[in-house]
């Protein structure tokens, strides 16, 4: 009897139901409701109104209609995708290269590893402002190019180049994280594969192509996903460097929304945020599900 009762209590505990009283959950719940759930629901409501922060007039879906009519929304979307694509590709390529270098036997490996990670921990706004100065038409970068007889472009003031310049700076800042993820991936590859390859007489290039690259796939996927999500809500770097300019040429979705907020179109910018929220969910939820399933297979 004694043992049976003990067993049943333990079983109940394992199912995790009544072991702790519910009120222990309330502080966390209150914070969650106050800081997340309430603003989310409130923003859904305010996105349907014309809102001046003091009063709001219900206008149905007009804000959404207006948001999708925004002349620079499409350009912002395209720019956002270009930004996400450039940064993903470059971070994968450069990150893998740096990781290969930093897992080989080179001098000052520990030091180099920390140096390449350093930009990741610096604030994006600080990096943005610094590079804005460096990228001025007569700034350090162009002066250096001039020493080699190259006329540097107007990195941030050429409407065709501004977005790409910002993306390059974002790569500079983010490549350290990609490198660290790749280092972890490479180090985790069992030595047996490399030994087997050596016995088969593989060249270093074949080693890379048929062993390292395929076995780093999870790392690559992680980096790409992180970048796509990060790229979709890119804001600080663009705002610090160009403010979406010149004109509207480097606007991304988040900067379009921010400018609407700045102009006092609170309802409209809330509608924009709801759209961005849904947009990211639609992309990320299936992606995550797909990835999790894939990992289960392997």
């Amino acid at each position, binding site marked *: 009897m004694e043992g049976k009762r003990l067993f049943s209590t333990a079983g109940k505990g394992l199912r995790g139901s009544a072991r702790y009283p519910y009120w222990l959950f309330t502080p966390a719940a209150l914070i969650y409701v106050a800081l997340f759930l309430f603003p989310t629901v409130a923003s859904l409501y305010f996105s349907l109104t014309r809102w001046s922060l003091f009063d709001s007039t219900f206008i149905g879906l007009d804000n959404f209609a207006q948001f999708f009519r925004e002349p620079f929304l499409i350009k912002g979307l395209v720019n956002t995708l270009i930004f996400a694509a450039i940064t993903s590709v470059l971070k994968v390529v450069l990150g893998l290269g740096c990781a290969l270098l930093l897992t080989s036997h080179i001098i000052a490996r520990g030091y180099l590893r920390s140096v390449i990670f350093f930009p990741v921990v610096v604030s994006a706004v600080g990096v943005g402002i610094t590079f804005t100065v460096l990228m001025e038409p007569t700034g350090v970068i162009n002066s250096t190019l001039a020493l080699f007889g190259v006329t540097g472009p107007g990195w941030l003031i050429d*409407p065709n180049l501004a977005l790409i310049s910002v993306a390059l700076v974002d790569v500079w800042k983010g490549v350290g994280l990609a490198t660290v993820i790749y280092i972890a991936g490479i180090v985790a590859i069992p030595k047996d594969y490399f030994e087997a390859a050596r016995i088969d007489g593989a060249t270093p290039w074949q080693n890379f192509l048929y062993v390292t690259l395929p076995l780093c796939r999870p790392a690559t996927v992680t980096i790409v996903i992180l970048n796509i999500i990060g790229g979709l809500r890119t804001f600080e770097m663009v705002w610090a460097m160009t403010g979406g*300019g*010149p*004109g*509207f040429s480097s606007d991304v979705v988040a900067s379009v929304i921010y400018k609407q907020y700045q102009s006092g179109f609170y309802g409209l910018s809330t509608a924009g945020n709801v759209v961005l929220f849904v947009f990211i969910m639609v992309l990320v939820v299936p992606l995550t599900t797909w990835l999790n399933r894939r990992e289960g297979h392997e």
Partner: protein
Amino acid sequence: MKIVPNGMLRGASILAICLFASAVQAQQVTLSLLTDVAPEVVARAEALVADFEAANPDISIEMETRPGGAEGDNLIKTRLATQSMTDLFVYNSGSKFQSINPDRLLVDLSAEPWQADIQPSFKTVVTSIDGAVRGAPFATSSAGGIFYNTRVYAELGLEVPKSWEQFMANNQTILDAGEAAPVIQTYKDAWTSQILLLGDYFNVQAAKPDFAKLYTEGQEKFATEPTALRSFEKLQELHDAGFLNENYASAGYDDGLRMLANGEGVHYPITSGALRAIATTYPDLLGDIGFFPIPGDNAEINGLTVWMPQAVYIPNTTSNLDAAKKFVAFVASPAGCEALKRAGGGSGPFLVAGCELENAPPAVSDMLPFFENGHNSPALEFLSPIKGPALEQITVSVGSGIMTAAEGAALYDEDVRKQAQQLGLPGW
């Protein structure tokens, strides 16, 4: 005793110090004043504050600055909305004043005795929709148009243009001479890109006198009214003709003033706030700067677009209303004008009775005839509550050749529609 700032919570020692301090400086009141960061505005605020504190030893004023342009608009709106505004703040009159809900957030100053001394033309641009006057002029009236370097004009034997055609001919001569850029544009500070368009309003209303009214009602658009579209076209023409300084995209307002003052550039479309800045930074070169209004297509019709100055306002949230009102009264008095004169002089006639412009720089003398002969009109933002917030990005796009004038005008009409709806105006 208002100096004790939440002293109770900060431990006994701080409390003791505060009590001691307030015992020594009885009735000392500290006000906070927010202005934008432009050097001429700061200089004016400093002069006014210094004279005011000298006259009122029991009141001290702490100054804060904020960025200009859209960033500053956002800051003002947010601080007002979150009830964290300073006791006094300086902000635009006209349409931007209307966009901050003045009827609900600002103190009504209609009954103040100094109102009798203020020009009626100014009162209208700080009057909220309920008919209450809520601000006092923080500077003289001014004008927007083309400031030019008279030294270069003399060297090249140029004459002040009366029509757009003559203006473009002058630009060509300057370009051919190869020494200086004909027209200065400074798109790093995007707000400067709007002045050519806004300063052209005299020409718009000369051809279409009821434009402001119809525009406010949503009946008239920039894209469809040819005289209004013309303002956008002028911006495009300057770019297409290659008359802009090479670094127009990366130069800022300060660069523009430098280029104008030392003759690297000849024409700078800007408002007369520029004169105060030049007086501060390049006092020796102020005599080389002249002014003419933005020319229209007809040389017979030549007139000035007038800007009303920023105003000082008191938000409802102030806890020192009487002291704040004292400062506003000082700003709106002849003593306040004296302080303004010391901070770089006037850029146009004073708006306070009993204040006379003295030793006006040449550029202001060039403006005065237009003030006197009536060939002037307020800029559109003082005649209509609607100003689209994206105008500066649109004018940068048109002025850089990213967008055509027609595209820019159509885009601006869309921007204006959003603003009108946000303001809740009828007919939109």
